[in-house]
């Protein structure tokens, strides 16, 4: 199955939220900093639960934070 791409605006949202660091976001959602790096670079598509947790941190709807590009 061809894979689509899950992109996001986390980097922008972090800076809009007091220049939150990747480490701070990682601690808030319970993952490693490396996972946040991979998500920001669209190298890793997070689980639905993690995506909701990240969206909740920024108080944005899920579909505003993440977007899906089909293959």
């Amino acid at each position, binding site marked *: 199955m061809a894979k689509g791409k899950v992109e996001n605006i986390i980097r922008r949202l972090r800076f809009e939220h007091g220049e939150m660091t990747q480490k701070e976001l990682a601690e808030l959602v319970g993952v*490693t900093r490396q996972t946040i790096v991979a998500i920001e670079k669209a190298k890793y598509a997070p689980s639905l639960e993690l995506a909701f947790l990240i969206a909740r941190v920024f108080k944005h709807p899920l579909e505003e934070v993440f977007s899906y590009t089909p293959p």
Partner: protein
Amino acid sequence: MNFEVKNIYAGLVTMAIIFTIYAVVVAQMYGEGRFEGPEGNALLAKAILALMLGGVLVHILVAILTNIVLAIIARDPKPSFVVDERDKLIELRGLRVSYYVFGAGFVTAIAVMALGAGVFWVFNLLLASCAVSTLVEAVVRLACYRRGF
């Protein structure tokens, strides 16, 4: 470097230490002809048990030392011990590949046994395939961390 990557490196160091010691000791004993006869099989079983127990102990020691040394080098007083969903997916991918490698080694060992090889060679082939599959698993996991997953 996250906790899981440190553990992978610790596992590789452990494997190198423990299998080198095992290979040297067992080769020496084999040269002395101590694995011949029914007592030889019991001795081989003891050597493999010692390898397994030693492996667990060495791995714990190496993992602790690796985490301490890397925390000192990185000047990180509070290193993270978090293991998340991405780590688990990477681990699963590594395990899947390692099962194939071990399966191939297992079939090879049975084929060698069918050709008339003794218990000594069959069990050591199984151990070797276990070592190779662990090595392949580590390489696959490190590649996933480096290239992105």
